[in-house]
């Protein structure tokens, strides 16, 4: 089935705003910046079956920046893993949708993440598992730019290249913002592409990681490297808060933001182009 990915992105963004707006607070900025990548993976590239979330041999996605959980849940709900109504239970006591991704709670979530750096190593382990099982699965992972300050990221990077895990395609959500300021100010990770190349990765630098066509092309290109013996890092130059201007304008303040239901409703109109 061919989906209109632009419309899917709008749906996911609206559901992120509605679910976090219903709660009143959440990691809005870093959810909105990864929407295009999630849409391309779950609605085009990944071999998955929402009716069989544990399907053997399926492609996997590890959201190592676990605080983008609400974006993952909005994507999964739109893809049919569970009812969209459940999105309104986000972060409520007893929910299946906790702030950070939990593989034991949410259908479709492949790995528990939240302690930054660890999910990426887990993804490397999953990719190694897929190689050993020889089932042809591709493993995708999303890491944050602030998360890239964790030493464990680079331990995993070294190992994945050394073990030639070319079934691993990772993304960096390079939105240039973290909690205490810009990434450049706090502890600069630049030059990022050069770092990944130096670690033995095939690197694809996407100028606009919130442009659906550019993300699609990058993933297609990455898949060509399936037998290259090298894992691929797709650096997505994104906008933290993309799609909702006042969130973008908060800058580093949009990492974890208070929001009213009225503000969320206005954001939905903005995303839909109704204002």
């Amino acid at each position, binding site marked *: 089935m061919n989906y209109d990915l632009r419309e899917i992105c709008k749906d996911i963004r609206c559901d992120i705003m509605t679910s976090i707006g219903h709660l009143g607070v959440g990691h809005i900025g870093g959810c909105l910046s990864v929407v295009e990548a999630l849409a391309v993976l779950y609605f085009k590239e990944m071999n998955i079956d929402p009716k069989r979330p544990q399907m053997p041999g399926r492609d996997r996605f590890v959201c190592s920046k676990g605080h983008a959980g609400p974006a993952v849940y909005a994507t999964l709900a739109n893809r049919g893993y569970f009812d969209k109504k459940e999105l309104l239970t986000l972060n409520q006591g007893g929910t299946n949708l906790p702030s950070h991704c939990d593989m034991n709670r949410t259908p479709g979530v492949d790995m528990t993440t939240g*302690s930054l*750096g*660890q999910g990426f*190593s*887990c993804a490397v382990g*999953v990719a*190694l598992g897929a190689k*050993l099982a020889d089932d042809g699965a591709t493993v995708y992972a999303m890491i944050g730019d602030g998360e890239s300050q964790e030493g464990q990221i680079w*331990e995993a990077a070294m*190992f994945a290249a050394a073990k030639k895990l070319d079934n691993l395609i990772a993304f960096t959500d390079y939105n240039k913002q973290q909690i205490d300021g810009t990434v450049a100010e706090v502890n600069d990770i630049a030059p990022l592409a050069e770092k990944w190349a130096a670690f033995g990765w095939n690197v694809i630098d996407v100028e606009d990681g919130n442009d659906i066509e550019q993300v699609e092309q990058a993933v297609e290109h990455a898949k060509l490297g399936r037998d290259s013996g090298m894992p691929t890092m797709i650096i997505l130059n994104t906008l933290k808060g993309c799609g909702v201007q006042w969130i973008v304008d908060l800058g580093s303040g949009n990492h974890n933001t208070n929001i009213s239901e009225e503000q969320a409703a206005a954001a939905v109109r903005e995303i839909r182009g109704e204002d």
Partner: protein
Amino acid sequence: MEMRAVYAACLAELMEKDKRVLVLDADLAKASGTLGLYEKFPKQMFDCGVAEQNMASIAAGLSSYGFKPWIETFTPFATRRICDQIAISVAYAKQNVKIVGTDPGIAAELNGGTHMSLEDIGVLRSIPGMVIFEPVDDVQLRAAMPVLDAYEGPVYVRLFRKELPTVFGPDYKFDLFKADAIRQGKDLSIFVSGLLTADAVEAAERLAAEGVDAELINIHTIKPIDRETVLASARKTGAVLTVENHNIVGGLHSAVLEALAAERIPVCAVGVEDRFGEVGKLPYLRQAMGLTVENIVAGAKKALSLK
């Protein structure tokens, strides 16, 4: 036979039988006695290099794919160094990873204070779902390995690498969650784990020669502790001594105290008195840390005097 040789032979059997069993190293396969297995099991053994955090989380990823990974390194790196990875990637995510820490406590000997983990049990004991197992001899280790493999969930194995005196006989039956009575007695209960078990046996014999009838129980699984056995023995004898190659804060002593918190029974301790380790050979370290047979005899008499 060295404990690591038994351990490696058991791992080889498990890997032979089940291709899902994997072993991950952090540049200490040689020390763990498993380096020789790389040739025979090239698709089941992986050296992650000096990157323990990565090793632990990779193991969790492999477990999520249906594999049964064992990770191994020196005790301090297998526990305090990767505490968060064990807590989140492994335990919180409910992954089936076996964690083997070698050279626990004073066994680190010439590697000294930096490598002498006297807190590893305490570090991991507060993580929900962790099983903490410390084998006392080759017989118990051999019996335990297939049981650990069959158990689904995270287990920390606190493994002395070298030769240990054999405590258990050929008819020994192992239950991961049941403590083993080595000697029945009526005057006091000695609960011992790991390296000091053989010393406790000797101490119990000396006590017997002095007319003190000590019950000696090996607590091989410190978490979850066998409360039933601990309570029954303590209630029977009315005095308790714990003996461990670990800080008395957070280890076996703490676990026994928790089990006996509601009882009016004195509990004394032979263990490391909340201090860091230091370099030296075992005889020196036993003296310096207060972990000798004489310390155990004296501790038992103190517990008796408090009855």
